[in-house]
C-alpha cells in the first residue's frame, strides 16, 4: 500500500525543513518530494551496517546486540576518562540517556558543536546573542547578510524558506524587497546571487568587524584608509547598508569560527549587531550544520548548565572547551576510551585526533558505516532518527520540533541502545 506522509521533517541540516512529503510503500521510502539534494539523499537512504560487530584479533566480527552491549559497557566501566562524542544527528531523547550514562560512568559528553559553532557559543558567553526565530526574518528582514557561510551548498533551502528569497508579511515581494550582502574570502555560489559581495583576506574578519563597529559608532574618521586590504570607503558603504535597513539579519558560518580569531570573530560580530540596534533593528544567527546540533546544546544546557564539552569525571559537571572538548581530549590523550554516536570523527577531525582514536577502545553507534568504523572495537547499528524513530530536534534558531517515524525497522533506536548499555553498566557495577 502506498502511503503519502505530509509535513515530514528533514534530518539533514540545521534548517530542519518540516514541509517534506514522503511516499512509503511496503515499509520502504519510495519517493521524497520538496527536499533539497542533501535532504533527499539522506531520507532515501542507502546501505546499512547489517549487524553489531566486535573487533577480535584486529577484525570486526558479527555479534549479537547483547554481546555488543556488554562489551560496550565493559569498555566504559573500565575507562578512567571516557569520551561520549557526537549527538548532533540524533534525537534529544538519545542525548538525555547519554547524559545519564555519562553521569553514571564519569565521562565527558561533547558534541560536534565544538568543531563547528563551539566558538560561536563561547562568543555568546562573552556577549549574549541578539537573535530571533527564522520566521521573524522571513516576515521582516529587508537586508540579509551572509558572513562566512554558503547556504547554496550547505543549507540549500534556507534562502527560499527563511531568508533572501522568502516572502513574508512586511516583505511581500520576497527577494525584490530585500538586499543581500555576502562577505567571504572566496566568491561562493551564494556570493554570485548577492546584491553585493565583499571579499576579504583570510583571517581578517575580526578587523573588518571592528572597523564596521567604528563606523556605526560614528568614528569612521579614526579608521585607516585601508583595513586589511579593504578600503574605508567600501566599509562605510557596507556599514550604511546595515544602518539603513529596517530589519537586518546576519547569518554567519564556519568562515568565522574556523579561521584565525575563532570565537573572538563571533564575539565581535555579536557586538556589532547589538550596537546596530541603537540605530535600527538587527539580529544575528549561526548557520548550524547538523540538524540537531542546536538541540544537543539545549539538552546539555538544561541538564548540566553548559552547552557542550561537559566533563562528569568528578560527579559534578565541569565545562571548559579547549580542555574538555573532543579535539583537545583526543590530541592530548586525555581520554582513554570513546563512544561515538551519530557522527564520524575519523573524517571530521584533524589527523592527530584520529590517530588517538586508533589507540583507544572505541564504541560506534550509527546506522551507517563510515571511516570511524575502521577504528571501532564495538559497532552497534541503530535506527535512523526521524525516519525509523521519533524524537525531538531543534532548528538552528532554537525552535523545537518533533521528528516523525516514517517506516518500521528491525534496528533498535539510539535511546534503546543507550538504555541497554546503561543497564549493562549498572549490572557490571553490581557484580563488582
Amino acid at each position, binding site marked *: 500500500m502506498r502511503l503519502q506522509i505530509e509535513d515530514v521533517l528533514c534530518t539533514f541540516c540545521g534548517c530542519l525543513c*518540516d514541509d517534506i512529503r514522503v511516499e512509503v510503500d511496503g515499509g520502504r521510502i519510495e519517493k521524497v518530494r520538496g527536499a533539497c539534494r542533501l535532504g533527499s539523499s539522506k531520507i532515501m537512504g542507502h546501505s546499512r551496517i547489517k549487524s553489531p560487530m566486535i573487533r577480535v584479533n584486529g577484525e570486526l566480527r558479527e555479534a549479537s546486540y547483547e554481546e555488543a552491549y556488554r562489551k560496550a559497557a565493559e569498555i566504559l566501566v573500565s575507562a578512567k576518562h571516557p569520551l561520549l562524542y557526537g549527538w548532533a544527528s540524533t534525537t534529544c531523547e538519545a542525548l538525555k540517556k547519554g547524559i545519564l550514562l555519562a553521569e553514571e560512568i564519569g565521562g565527558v559528553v561533547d558534541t560536534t558543536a565544538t568543531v563547528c559553532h563551539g566558538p560561536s557559543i563561547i562568543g555568546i558567553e562573552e556577549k*549574549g*546573542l541578539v537573535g*530571533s526565530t527564522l520566521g521573524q526574518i522571513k516576515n521582516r528582514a529587508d537586508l540579509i547578510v551572509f558572513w562566512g557561510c554558503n547556504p547554496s551548498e550547505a543549507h540549500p533551502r534556507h534562502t527560499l524558506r527563511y531568508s533572501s528569497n522568502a516572502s513574508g508579511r512586511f516583505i511581500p515581494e520576497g527577494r525584490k524587497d530585500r538586499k543581500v550582502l555576502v562577505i567571504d574570502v572566496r566568491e561562493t555560489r551564494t556570493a554570485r546571487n548577492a546584491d553585493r559581495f565583499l571579499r576579504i583576506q583570510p583571517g581578517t574578519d575580526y578587523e573588518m568587524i571592528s572597523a564596521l563597529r567604528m563606523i556605526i559608532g560614528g568614528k569612521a574618521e579614526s579608521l585607516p584608509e585601508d583595513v586589511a586590504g579593504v578600503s574605508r570607503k567600501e566599509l562605510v558603504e557596507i556599514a550604511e547598508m546595515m544602518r539603513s535597513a529596517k*530589519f537586518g539579519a546576519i547569518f554567519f558560518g564556519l568562515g568565522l569560527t574556523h579561521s584565525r580569531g575563532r570565537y573572538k570573530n563571533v564575539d565581535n560580530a555579536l557586538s556589532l549587531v547589538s550596537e546596530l540596534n541603537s540605530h535600527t533593528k538587527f539580529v544575528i544567527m549561526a548557520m548550524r550544520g547538523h540538524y540537531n546540533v542546536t538541540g544537543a546544546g539545549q539538552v546539555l544546557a538544561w541538564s548540566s*548548565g553548559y552547552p557542550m564539552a561537559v566533563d562528569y569525571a568528578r560527579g*559534578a559537571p565541569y565545562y571548559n572547551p579547549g580542555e574538555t572538548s573532543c579535539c583537545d581530549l583526543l590530541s592530548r590523550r586525555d581520554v582513554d576510551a570513546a563512544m561515538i554516536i551519530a557522527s564520524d570523527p575519523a573524517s571530521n577531525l584533524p589527523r592527530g585526533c584520529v590517530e588517538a582514536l586508533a589507540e583507544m577502545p572505541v564504541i560506534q553507534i550509527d546506522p551507517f558505516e563510515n571511516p570511524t568504523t575502521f577504528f571501532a572495537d564495538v559497532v552497534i547499528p541503530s535506527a535512523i532518527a526521524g525516519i525509523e524513530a521519533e524524537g525531538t530536534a531543534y532548528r538552528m534558531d532554537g525552535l523545537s520540533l518533533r521528528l516523525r517515524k516514517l517506516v518500521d525497522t528491525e534496528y533498535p533506536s539510539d535511546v534503546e541502545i543507550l538504555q541497554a548499555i546503561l543497564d549493562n553498566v549498572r549490572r557490571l557495577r553490581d557484580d563488582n
Partner: protein
Amino acid sequence: MIIKGGIVYDPANGIFGEEMDICIENGRIAEDAGGEVIDARGLLVMPGGVDAHSHIAGPKLNTGRIMRPDDSRMGTEPRTGVCRPSTGYTVPNCYAIGYRYARLGYTTAFEAATPIIEARHTHEELEEIPIVDKGALTLFGSNWTVMECVRENDMEKLAAYVAWGLRAARGYGVKIVNPGGGEAWGFGSNVKSIHDPVPHFDVTPAQIIRALAEVNERLRLPHSIHLHFNNLGRPGNYTTAIETLELLKDIKPSRMRQVVHVAHMQFSAYGGTGWKDFESKASVIADYFNQTDHATMDLGQIIFGPATTMTADAPLEYANARIGHQKWSNHDIELEESSGVVPWVYMRKMPVNAVQWAIGLELALLTKDPWKVVMTTDHPNGGPFVNYPEIIALLMSREKREEEMKTLHEVVRSRSTLPSIEREIDWSEIVIMTRAAPARILGLEDKGHLGIGADADISIYNIRPDEIDPSKDHAKVKAGMSRAKYTIKGGAVVVRDGEIVAAPQGRTYWVDAAVPERDMDRMLSSLKEKFERYYSIRMSNYMVQDAYLSNPFVVRAGVQPLKEVI
C-alpha cells in the same frame, strides 16, 4: 501516613497554629490513615509551598544558562544515589530547580511565560524538573491573531484562539507581557502607553488587555489573566499600573478569584521622572489594592547580589543591557512575542537598587489583605527563589529590616516608606502569601491547604512556633525555612532533614477549554492562512504532542466540548 503533633497552619480552612495530626491516604489528606508515623511534635506544619510566578523552564532559561557559564559554576553539587548533579545559582539546571524548591518545602511552581511556538521546549525542561508539580502560562499579548481579533472586535474568535493556543502550548493560563510591545519591537520600537497604537495593527495595549480579560472569563479559565504591565521597570510607571488596573475594574470574574493577577508588582511601583529622582510609589499601589477587589499581585522582591533578568519584555532588556553594560540576548518569536535575557547584579549601595528592595517589602506590608499578595522574587529576575526564607524573615521582623537598611544606600530611608512600617507578618499570613493565596489565585483547588481530599503536599520545618519570636529570632526563621525538616509531596517524603531522599516525577497542569465548534472552525481557517504565509513551520508540526507530558493533569474549562483539531 500520619503526621503527629505538629503546629498546623492551614488558613484556608481556618486553622491558625493548632496542634493536630494530619492523615494521608493515597497521596491526599484523609480523615484517618495508617502506616508511617512522622513525629512533628511542636514543629511548624503547613501546606507545601506554591510558586505562582517563577521562570523555571523554556528557551529563555537555557539562553541564560548558555550565556552564563560563570553562573553555572556556582552552586555545583555532584550526583548522589538519589539526585542528579546540580549547577547554577540564578540559572540553575533543571534538577537543581526541583531539589531546591523541595528543600524549601515548596511542592508546586509555575513557569510564568512561554510562547506557544516554543512551548515544546518548555515542556521538555519541565519534564526534567524533579519532584514539584508545575505548569506554564502562555503568552498572548503581542500575538498577531490576538491583535487581529481585537481589532475586529471578534470576541468569539479570540476565545477560540485562546482555547486553541492553550491546548497547542499545553498551557495553563493567559500571560500578557508588555502587550503590543513585543510586536513593536519587531522593528525595534515599543509602545509607550496603554493607549499607544501597536504599529501595523491598529490596536492599543488597553484594548488587548481588556479583550483578553473578557475572553479569559468567557472561557472560565481557572486562573485570571496574568499581566506584566506596559512601561515596566521605568521610573514613574505606577501611573501606568493604576491606569491599567482601572481598565479592568468592571469585568466580572467567572470564578471565585481575581480578574487580573499583576506579575512582580515591585517593578511597576516606581515614581520619579528618571533614575535620579527615582522613588517608591508602593504606598499608592497598596492603597489601590486595599480599596479594590479585582486584582492580586506577586511581589517580584529583589535580592542583593547576582540575578539574571529574563522576560518577554524585549525592549526592557535592551534598555537593561545598555544601562548595565551587560551581555544581552534577544529573541524575537515570529507572529507571537519577543524576549530578552540580561545578567544583573543588585547592589546595596546603589540608590535605585536599595529603593527597589524596599518597594517589594512595602507592597507586602502595606497591602492589608495577605490573600492579595504572593511572595515571589520573579525568579531569577529579582534574584533566585532560594532566597525566599530571607524575605520571610524580613516580613516577620522589623528588627531585621532595620539591620538590613543600615547596610543600604541612605535613600532607602527618604524615598520609601519602609522605615516607618511597623507591621510584622505572622505565620498565618506567611502561609497565605506562600501557599494558600498563590493556589487560590492560580485556581488550584487541591493545593495550598490541608482540607480532606487536598493533595498531600506538606512542609514541616525545624521551627517551634510556640517557642520562637520571629520578630527577634529572625535568623532562626531564615535558617529553619531554608531546609525543610520534611517535605511531603503527594504523600511521599521527598525531603528529610534538608536532604532529598526521593525524587518522584511531578504533574504538569494544563487547561483544556471548550468553545463552540463554529467559532473554532472560523478561527482555524484564518489561522491556517497564517501558517501558509507567515509562520516558518507547518501547522501540523506546531502543537505540543502528548509525548511531552509524561504526567499531565488536565483542568477542564470553557463552555462546550472543544472540537478535536489536528
